[in-house]
């Protein structure tokens, strides 16, 4: 399969453009997405390509325009709603949790809500407490939502296309820190199915689960340990809800050891859930309890040296891996 090299933001842009060309009901709305080309330039050129009817600058009314998207989706459109960052998505939790997620169920299947809420998630760099949050723990806890978190341009491309075509509300988590990352993306149109994980690095000694930007730190840790002969199998679930449990369990049954890396703090997080599921389903296979390497349980501090210590670093991931390899 031939590929092209593109940045993460280009891959996401391409996914949106292809889907908007394919389907007239798809539109993009969010703060600064049109004339400004997106706060992080993910929608660059889209206003010029699709016009102001389909690429819409919204007021700073997250709950309002999230709800507008849900209403439009109920009657046949397929909105892509950009949250400038997911920190502001918290403002829209009422519409996402109480409305988008529950509409199909409350209407007994009559009103589908095919909508994508996308934007960068997690800490960027020196943005402090209100601008450095992860939301996957909140939103995977909401039945009715699908949650995707991507780590590479190719996954971003293939999964965003699937998200736009999905008939459910999909939460799509990106990262400011990865938009400039380059990667190989299929030259031809390609969709990646929602709910299927990806083994980003095969290995036999320990399963390491990580997503979004933590994946890259996990791979770095795995590479460092490979020098010592420790072979990590690094799994990127890509979709957190639904979760590719079969892939995870199969790997753990092979390696008998598992580390989960999660940018979020540990309390009631996705990693807590995965850990529980592994302990439950692979109890007799485990040679050590699952170790979680999580963000510290603190609001994010501003100073660089503190911030670096709060999110899981390569050193802490290596330490976590060593811990299960006793």
């Amino acid at each position, binding site marked *: 399969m031939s590929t092209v090299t593109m940045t993460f933001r280009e891959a996401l842009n391409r996914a949106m453009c292809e889907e908007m060309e394919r389907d007239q009901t798809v539109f993009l709305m969010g703060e600064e997405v049109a004339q400004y080309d997106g706060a992080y330039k993910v929608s660059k050129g889209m206003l010029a390509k699709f016009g102001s009817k389909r690429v819409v600058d919204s007021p700073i009314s997250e709950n309002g325009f999230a709800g507008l998207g849900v209403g439009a989706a109920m009657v*046949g459109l397929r909105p892509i709603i950009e949250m400038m960052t997911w920190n502001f998505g918290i403002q829209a939790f009422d519409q996402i949790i109480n409305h988008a997620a529950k509409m199909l169920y409350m*209407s007994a299947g009559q009103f589908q809500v*095919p909508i994508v809420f996308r934007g960068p998630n997690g800490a960027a760099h020196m943005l402090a407490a209100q601008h450095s949050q992860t939301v996957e723990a909140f939103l995977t806890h909401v039945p009715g939502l699908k949650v995707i978190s991507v780590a590479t341009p190719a996954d971003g491309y293939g999964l965003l296309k699937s998200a736009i075509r999905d008939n459910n509300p999909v939460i799509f988590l990106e990262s400011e820190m990865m938009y400039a990352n380059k990667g190989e993306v299929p030259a031809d149109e390609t969709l990646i199915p929602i709910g299927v994980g990806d083994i980003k690095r095969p290995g036999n000694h320990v399963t390491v689960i990580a997503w979004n930007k933590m994946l890259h730190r996990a791979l770095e840790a795995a590479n460092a340990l490979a020098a010592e002969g420790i072979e990590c199998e690094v799994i990127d679930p890509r979709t957190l809800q639904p979760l590719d449990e079969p892939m995870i369990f199969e790997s753990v049954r092979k390696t008998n050891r598992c580390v989960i890396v999660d940018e979020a703090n540990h309390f009631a997080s996705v990693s807590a859930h995965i850990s529980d599921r592994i302990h439950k389903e692979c109890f007799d296979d485990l040679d050590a309890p699952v170790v979680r390497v999580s963000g510290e349980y603190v609001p994010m501090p501003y100073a660089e040296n503190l911030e670096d210590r709060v999110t899981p670093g390569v050193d802490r991931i290596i330490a976590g891996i060593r811990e299960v390899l006793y």
Partner: protein
Amino acid sequence: MPSVKEAVKVDNKQKAKSSGGSAGGAGHSKEFLVQLYKDMILYRRFEERVHVAYTTRRKFAGFCHLHIGQEAVAAGVQHALRPTDYVIGAYRSHTQAIAKGITPNEVMAELFGKVGGCVRGKGGSMHMFSKEKRFLGGHGIVGGQVPLAAGVGFAIKYRGEQDVCVCYLGDAATNQGQFFEALNMAATWKLPVLFIIENNRYGMGTDIHRTTSIDHLWKRALAFDMAHSQVDGLNVLNIVDAVRSTCDAIRKDNHPHLMEIMTYRYRGHSVSDPGAYRTKEEVAEYQAKDPMNMHGKFLVASKLATEADLAKWDEEAKKIAEEAENFADQSPPPGEDEIWKDVYAD
């Protein structure tokens, strides 16, 4: 004929007159005027039956918000709309659902949590829906339906259609942040949405004037230079005429409108509310100018109906409500498999 006050023309002193009685009737056919009455009495009898089914016969539980006293709004608004127009409401929406074409049977069965309900017992009193009839719910979060309505308006405009989306909300919902956000977007993007505040003077037990600083709720529109009006909701023909001319304007000029309809509920906020926050006299005062009764008197006075006709229609309404209860009784509860259905669409 009642006039719709538009944004710039609005006048502080020009309050809605709660005179009761049906203003005019000019331009409406006898059939139409009679149908309005039949609708109102059906809604009244239906809700009364719901009340008894809940309290005396304990057929269901949960919250149950009755529309008794406010029927003229559901009837009047609906008759001013086209079938393809969309309607979305809050949790006080049994009659709105029936007005939009969901059958009384389906509404009652839904209340009873039965599979014959319009959403197979999964939504209940607060969540009635019909995609076919373009009734978009039945929503339980105060104010939550308002951005949804803006979205429907957005879709109408996106597709270049001529429909209007009517969004009902309560007086107290005008204190919700997302109400304002939605109005701002609707006004900025000129979305074809008619926002109707059913001002029944109370949000639960709280007089609306205790939770906002304005005397008239249409003033919310001033923050957005949005067209707006106040309508005497005790006169059903007022409502019909106002909504009709407003929807004409919305279709023609492509702009949203905020309409405050002055109304009153006779029963508690929900069935379990004793209503100690208002006097019996106040309730009686409104009941004395009951819009349904007034419209009935108007029909008789105009020789469009006799007292016997009214009594007959009353009986017919009771019959429909009774049949709805029977239907609901006989409908089975949903099967356990429904629990895991409709969480995700294919």
